[in-house]
Each structure stands twice: as structure tokens, then as C-alpha cells.
């Protein structure tokens, strides 16, 4: 019965309700894009860390979990390895470089390596120990352990976009002292979800990475293998809390955290996410106000009619359910239109724009969008209940 009234009214006033649907759809689009952007930016920031094959990340003490500032030496790593409960540990270092699509001939002439010249691509050069935690699992090709020392793993998306295939030689340009140097490396494996601090990554065996990485001057030779961090794989991953404490206790001058803490500490991450979250919640709030306001005004306009319905014996339940059902119907329809619209719009976006429509924030955004209806419904609840059936007789008190 209440649904009958709700639907009849919507059908008889299609234009008005469709406009409200459209407003919900636009709010949905806005909220979804903010959520997808939050998801995308977060992924660009943390993907590699989040998908690490080890549970704990070891930083140098007092560097505030900064990857570039931290230094972990070989001796520390050996100490970590001896701690009970540690299954494996790998050293990981980060440096920046560029993937270029040109070569320098022995005569010093720059020759493009692709048919059409392509702009260089900034990348993070990640030095990892082959076969140890830190090296990503490959989607295709081989992992670093079983291949040549100049073999590297690259991001499958980068490969796809730049037409690189397994077995291709790629050229990395880094700055050594004051000059630019070019290094030829071979793609042996591809993996995905490897972005680190907004750049795609290239994984290079440690010894090669030492040579390739940019250096202030060409001659620095250390006797010890020093990396930025160490990644620890635990025998029992569920024990990570206790293990972090034990490591800090038994090995000096280190700070041990889990993956989430590590990426949350990266510069700007928290600020960025909370800014986007604020925008999202604010937009949702506006949605509730607009939709709630609309239905409230509609209720006030219908006082005479609602009074008549109550006078002829419609209960409060019928009146309230009918109104709430309308809000929910309009809301769901709007979210559906907005969701489909966002999905189609997103398909036309270039891959460089970091929007991800599958993440958790998009899921929670949709759920919260669907709550706009019921919450807005509460706004007009009081006025619906307050309507006196006496108004039908023109005797309002």
C-alpha cells in the first residue's frame, strides 16, 4: 500500500523526480571521482610497499621512517637474520632515474631506439637482492635470481604503454657526478602494482644497481653493502607486532614497522588522503542537505493532501513508509545513473590519470551515497508525523 502510493506519485511527477535523480547522480559522480582519485593517488604512493613480500620494514633509527634518509648496513642485516622468527631478509634501496628511448653510440651520437622518438619516463630504480624479500613476484618472464646481472623487472603497465617486451634492452639514464650516463639493461620479467611514490619502478639486482644509481662523484666505494631499508619476511606473519619489538630490542639502532605504517609515514600521504576524505564527506553532506531539503519542501507542500489521507484512515506508518520509499527509490536510481556515468566517463580517461574504481574507498563511497536517502528521509519524518488529519476539514489546531 505505501509502495503503491510512492510509485504512483513518482510516475505521475516524472519530471520533478527525475531532476532530483539527476542531482543525486551528479553528487554520486563527484563523490566517486574523489574516492577513485584518493584510491589512485594512494596506490601510486604505496603500491609497491603494500604488496611487499615481507611483513616488516626495517628503517634506520631516528629518520622518521624516511626511505631516502634511512641507511641499513650489511652487518645489521646479518644481525636481523639471526633473530628467532625471521624467515628471510632482503636489502632494498631506492634511487631515481629515467627510462630513455635513445642510445649513445661509441662516437657520442644520440640515436633513438624506437621508430618514433618517445619522451623519457621518470622511474624509481629499486635495488633488490635477487631471491630475497623486496623483489616483486613476476607476472611473466623470470625473476632476478635466475637471470643475468643486467636483467631487470619492469612495471607491466609501463611496458604496455611504451611498447617494451620481455627480452628487450632498455636504456636507463642517471646522473653521475656532473655527467649523464646511459646504461643498457635487459627486461627479464614483468610485474604489476609496483608504483612507489608516484613513479613506476624498475627492479635491478643489487650489484648492478650500485653501478647505475646516481652518485655525487664516480668514485665512492664502500666496503659494506648499504641499503635504505631491509624487508623482513617472518616465519609466522601473524606475530608481526611482537617480532617488530623483538627486532628493535635485539638489533640496535633500527626502527621496525609494518607496511601500512611505512607508507602512511611517507611525505604528504596522510595530508593528501585526509584532504580527499574531507572533500568526499563534505560532498555527501551537501547531498543529504539537498535531497533532505527537497523532500522536506515537498512534504510541506503536501500537508493538505497528507491530512486528507490521514483523515480517511491512512496510518502514520503508511504515510511515512510511502515518503521514505520515494526517497530511497530516487536515491538508488540516482546512484545507479551516477555510477554508470562515472564508469563510462572513466573509460575515456588516459591511463596516466590515477583513478581507481575498484578500491575500498569507492566501495564505501557507494554505500555512503546509498545512505543519503534514508538519512534525508529522517529530515521530513517529523513534519510527516505532525500533519493533523483535522486539516482536511480546515480545522487545523
Amino acid at each position, binding site marked *: *500500500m505505501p509502495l*503503491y*502510493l510512492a510509485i*504512483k*506519485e513518482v*510516475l*505521475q*511527477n516524472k519530471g520533478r523526480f527525475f531532476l532530483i535523480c539527476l542531482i543525486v547522480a551528479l553528487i554520486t559522480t563527484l563523490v566517486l571521482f574523489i574516492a577513485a582519485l584518493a584510491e589512485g593517488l594512494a596506490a601510486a604512493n604505496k603500491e609497491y610497499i603494500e604488496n611487499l613480500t615481507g611483513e616488516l620494514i626495517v628503517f634506520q633509527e631516528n629518520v622518521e621512517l624516511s626511505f631516502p634518509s634511512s641507511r641499513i648496513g650489511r652487518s645489521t642485516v646479518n644481525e636481523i637474520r639471526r633473530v628467532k622468527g625471521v624467515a628471510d631478509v632482503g636489502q632494498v634501496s631506492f634511487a631515481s632515474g629515467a627510462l630513455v628511448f635513445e642510445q649513445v653510440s661509441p662516437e657520442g651520437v644520440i640515436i633513438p631506439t624506437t621508430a618514433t622518438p618517445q619522451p623519457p619516463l621518470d622511474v624509481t630504480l629499486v635495488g633488490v637482492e635477487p631471491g630475497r624479500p623486496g623483489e616483486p613476484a613476476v607476472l611473466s618472464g623470470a625473476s632476478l635470481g635466475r637471470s643475468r646481472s643486467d636483467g631487470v623487472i619492469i612495471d607491466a603497465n609501463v611496458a604496455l604503454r611504451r611498447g617494451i617486451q620481455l627480452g628487450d634492452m632498455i636504456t636507463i639514464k642517471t646522473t653521475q657526478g656532473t655527467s649523464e650516463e646511459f646504461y643498457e639493461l635487459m627486461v627479464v620479467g614483468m610485474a604489476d602494482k609496483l608504483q612507489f611514490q608516484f613513479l613506476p619502478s624498475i627492479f635491478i639486482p643489487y650489484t648492478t644497481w650500485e653501478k647505475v644509481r646516481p652518485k655525487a662523484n664516480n668514485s665512492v666505494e664502500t666496503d659494506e653493502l648499504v641499503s635504505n631499508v631491509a624487508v623482513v619476511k617472518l616465519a609466522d606473519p601473524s606475530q608481526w607486532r611482537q617480532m617488530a619489538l623483538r627486532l628493535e630490542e635485539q638489533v640496535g639502532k633500527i626502527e621496525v614497522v609494518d607496511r601500512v605504517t611505512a607508507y602512511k609515514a611517507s611525505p604528504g600521504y596522510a595530508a593528501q588522503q585526509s584532504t580527499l576524505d574531507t572533500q568526499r564527506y563534505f560532498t555527501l553532506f551537501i547531498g543529504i542537505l539537498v535531497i533532505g531539503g527537497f523532500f522536506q519542501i515537498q512534504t510541506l507542500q503536501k500537508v*493538505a*493532501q497528507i*491530512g*486528507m*489521507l*490521514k*483523515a*480517511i*484512515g*491512512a*496510518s502514520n506508518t*503508511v504515510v511515512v513508509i510511502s515518503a521514505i520509499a520515494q526517497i530511497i527509490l530516487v536515491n538508488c536510481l540516482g546512484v545507479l545513473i551516477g555510477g554508470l556515468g562515472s564508469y563510462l566517463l572513466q573509460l575515456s580517461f588516459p591511463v596516466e590519470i590515477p583513478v581507481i574504481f575498484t578500491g575500498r574507498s569507492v566501495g564505501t563511497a557507494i554505500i555512503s551515497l546509498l545512505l543519503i536517502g534514508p538519512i534525508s528521509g529522517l529530515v521530513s519524518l517529523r513534519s510527516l508525523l505532525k500533519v493533523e*488529519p*483535522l486539516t*482536511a*476539514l*480546515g*480545522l487545523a489546531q
Partner: protein
Amino acid sequence: MTPVLQAESVAKVYGSGQASVRAVDDVSFEIRPGEFVALVGPSGSGKTTMLAMLAGLLTPTEGSILIGGERLSQMSESRRTRFRRRSIGFAFQSNNLVPYLTARENVELMLRLNNRLNRQSKERAADLLARLGLDDRMGSYPSQLSGGQQQRVAIARALIHEPNLVLADEPTASLDTERAYQVVRTFAELIHEQQRAGIIVTHDLRMCRYVDRVISMMDGHVNRIIDDRVEIDALAAFSEESFSAQ
């Protein structure tokens, strides 16, 4: 026959203290099945207030109202709502119909509310509308109907669920004389046929020619009850003359 409706020394006081208004004072009457009664009186005499109390929409300050032997004041709020839905038919002066339902759906609404919508009752609704001269208007929305047509739909709605008591507050106020006569005549016929009890509030004494009894109110009191056919017809005729003399 037991009365459908009994009002016993009913009074209604609006407000309190200095500002209080005694809108209805010491009103008693009974109505039996098949009786069609007109409640007449000047503006402000308490007719609508009385009607609202009879429908259980307003609680009397004094006295009591029994419908089908049941005391309205002893019912809970939700029980009263259910009671209105089942046992009372309503036609108001205006804002009678649900604008987004067709004439037919408006009449069927009463059946729906009572969970009594089926093929048989739908047929009855269509027959009733046809009886009121609306057979070609059943699919029209209220905005597509004239005032008189709307009032006839409202009367059909007031009768379709077979209530014991039918209440109409000035259903002819917005109609021209011919239409008003037609509406009230059909209304009276249906009340008599179906043995319901009906009360029509009206300003227009000419409408009295179709009723069985006239209850006249003045300043909240019943000042006269006319139940003699000859007297009623004389009253209607007199008021008709004074109308045409204008």
C-alpha cells in the same frame, strides 16, 4: 433498529481561560441506518467541529459519542484511525482527491487501505462511478475533472468501502445549483439504498429536499430539529424562492 450514531450532550471548548470558545454546546442526537441528515446553520455555528468529533478527529470536551454502540473516547489513537478507515466515509469541501491517482484509483484507494481490493470490489467501484455519471472519466486525473466531477468521485470514495457512517462537509460549496442538486440527490439515493447513515453539512437549505431530517445549529447549540417531510419540503421550497428572488 439500533442507532448508528449517538451524540450525548457533546460540547467542545477551544482554547482555555479568557480566550476559550465554546464551539459546540450540549448537542445530542441519534441517527439510524438508512437516514440521511442535514446539519445546517450559519457560519461559525459549530457544524465542522461537530463533524470532526463524530469522525473521531477531535475529542469532545464534554459528553460522549457512540458509533455502532462503541464509545469513541475509549479507543486508542491507532484504533480510531482503523475505525475511520473501516466504518466512516468522508467527503470534504476541498482537497478531496489524491492528485496522482485517477478517479477510479482514488475510489479504489479506500478499498486498498482496507485490504479489500479484489476483482469484485473493483467492479463495484466502476459501477458506482458509472452510477454517478463518470463512466467515461474513470481514467482521468483530478486535475482533468471539473469541480462537480471531483465531488462525485469523492462521494464514490466515501461509499465504496461500505461504511456505517458517511460524513460530508459542504460537498456542494463549489458547485453551481444544478450540479449541487445532482450530487446531493445521488448521494441521498445511495445512502438510502445501502442503508448507511449519512450526515451532510451545508449552508444551502435548498439541498434539504433530499434529506430525511434537518438539524439546525446556532452558536454551538442545536436550535431546531425538523423531521417532518412536509416541513422539510416547505423549508427547501422557501429557501429556493428566496434564492430565485435575488
